[in-house]
């Protein structure tokens, strides 16, 4: 659905997304890298469980939350860095046991 349209000389880097190696461009946002990879659902709604993905791409909506090296972060506000470990698909996160 999404593809990179601008030629770039940026270095190719490597991410680990849900255990799989994914190539990205150095300096692009993590959300852009994952969208370009064809990943549209980043997580699931905490209330209804339906799939969610990047919407505002500017840090306001929090729909693109993923776990980056152990911490929940907005993928649109983080630059992709070589070697990053990303987990997607967090579902109905429970706060109580």
């Amino acid at each position: 659905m999404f593809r990179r349209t601008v030629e770039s000389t940026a270095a190719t880097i490597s991410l680990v997304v849900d255990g799989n190696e994914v190539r990205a461009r150095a300096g692009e946002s993590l959300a852009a890298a994952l969208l370009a990879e064809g990943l549209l659902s980043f997580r699931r709604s905490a209330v209804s469980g339906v799939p969610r993905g990047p919407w505002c791409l500017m840090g306001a909506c929090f729909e693109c939350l993923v776990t980056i090296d152990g911490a929940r972060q907005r993928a649109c506000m983080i630059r992709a860095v070589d070697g990053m470990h990303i987990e997607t698909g967090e579902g109905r996160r429970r706060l109580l046991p």
Partner: protein
Amino acid sequence: MKREESEFAVIGGGLVGAAIAWGLARLGKQVAMLDEGDIAWRASRGNFALVWVQSKGLGMPAYAAWTRRSSDGWAAFADALGEETAIDVAFRRPGGFALCLSEAELEARAAAMHRLHNQPDMIPYPYEVVHRERLRALLPAIGPEVAGGIFSPLDGHCNSLRLLRALHAGLQRRGGKYLSEHVVDRIEQRQGMFALATSAGEVRAARVVLAAGNGNARLAPMVGLAAPVRPQRGQVIVTERVEPFLHHPMLSVRQTDEGTVMIGSSTEEVGFDDHVGAPVLAAMAARAIRIFPCLGRLNVVRTWAALRVMSPDGFPIYSQSMTHAGAFLATCHSGVTLAANHALVLPPMLEAGSLGTELAAFGGKRFDVSAHG
């Protein structure tokens, strides 16, 4: 300059103005709702979204009755709005708690509820003091310091941003006009018509309703009324979304229909200043974590402040002008709770040209220190 003409001009596009405007439009009235731009002080976009009854009305039993009436009308109001606009404002009325962190705090709150209900002319409503052991069964997430709380089955909450959007959509669907960027500079009455000089031209209407929140203090004298309201700042914290775990709204903590947790209820007298500040936010967060320790594991995603519209005694003001027939004023700090009344009860009074006797206690003249009136 263009010119607008309608039966009613409602000044203010927040929850109070929009509820009244939608209600008037439902009665078949031609309505123009005048609003400021995006930089307006919008309590309606920053509020806590409680539909709250308990503890309101100490000092004015008529306010307790008015609040109760709106709370009782809210479900039908939300249904009507939903039917017209297809927007679900997520109204829930599971009953709410005011939680206390010590026996002394619980006793003080229980005593205040007792005084509230002992007032002459007070119509009692159901509530109970719930002590810690029973509370734990209802709210398993409470921390070790929670002594208990006051529960009222009448308390509820909604999604107030969707409420504001639904009222605007409903008004426009009914043919009402929404006039943004129309700051009212002057109101004059000529030959039975009100002429409103605004930043975007003149608007004329047979009747005018001032529902401009803190702006009513400036506008009221233009039609012979008084609304000595002042801004009172409240700060709000919102967390990331989690699976629903708080099934009742609390006075200072509630989980929204979308899974976020809101923490609020601060009050500051700082004038027209809606900045947030770390000291108040930190105190709010610390208290919330003492009430529900699990909140400490949540990320905060945003904080904001908004300005309540506060009258000298804290109660709403509903007035009609004696000098400018056809001019009315409505202002309160509970635009969410009272939205059902503003949409369904007030408009027929405005249509009839006279506020009902149940609103007699709410006139702005109660703040007038001189002997007349």
